[in-house]
């Protein structure tokens, strides 16, 4: 069994209104050293596979097909073997 931690972020240059709104509130709380906040998504996937390469391929397919909108977003993931 493999577990994938998938991180989805907006591509460089794509406006992040959520991040901008959060940043404004945080600055008004007095955390003036925070210069920027970017938002994204996190997915945890468990893949029932013995084979690391096959699991990796499957995670990539799922990301490309549905979890990530490649027009707006980039993604990275970490894959680790876990107990069943």
């Amino acid at each position: 069994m493999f577990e994938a931690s998938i991180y989805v972020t907006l591509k460089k240059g794509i406006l992040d209104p959520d991040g901008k709104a959060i940043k404004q509130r945080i600055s008004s709380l007095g955390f003036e050293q925070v210069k920027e906040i970017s938002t994204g998504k996190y997915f945890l996937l468990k893949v029932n596979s013995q084979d690391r390469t096959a699991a990796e391929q499957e995670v990539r397919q799922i990301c490309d097909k549905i979890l990530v909108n490649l027009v707006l977003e980039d993604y990275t993931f970490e894959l680790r073997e876990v107990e069943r």
Partner: protein
Amino acid sequence: MKFGVVNYPGSNAADCYYIFDRVLGHPVSMIMSEERGLDGLDCVVLPGGFSYGDYLRAGALAGIAPVTEQLAEYAEQGGLVLGIGNGFQVLLEAGLLPGAVRRNKNLLFRCHDVFLRVDNNALPFTGNYSKGEIISFPIAHGQGNYYIDEQGLAQLEQKSQIVFRYCTAEGQVIPAANPNGSVGNIAGVCSEQGNVFGLMPHPERCTEEILGNTAGLRLFLSILDWWGIRQQEGVVAHG
């Protein structure tokens, strides 16, 4: 001409169904999203709403529903497809139209009338408008901020795929008339072949005098007129 309105869970399919059934008095069927029920239809409408709760991203889960997979084949064969609001988002997520939508730049759910400039009146959906005409449709969305990269935008412009742009009452396409931050004030785009059209504004909400505006009715009448001409030319079957 047979219309089909796709009903994803969370779609406002009845609104569009009503236009064909009651306002136009035309044959229409409701197509359930888990079935591949598009055979025999001449035009498929993806309605507004919040398909599958808009979880993940607006229109993303509907973009991989069985009916949407069939829709890709249907569009490939030249079938007419109209996506309104959430239906537009589904077409973008399914890759049937270029680009994507983001959350509105100002983070607001915008629900009011907008002015639109007709940039392409040569589509099956827009023949009853004149090029450059200013019309008014209502909008109602939180994620209608259209995005496409510079290269994609240049291609859209070159191939006349930008159909409607947000503008002022006088027709000026300027940032002040842009309700959501869309690139180029884009409110609706079509496929390269022109048979797939998606837009954020809601033509189905301005089709009767009692609603104070019938600008949207002309979009649906355009489709019927286009079909009628094709029938006369013998391009499509009668019936």
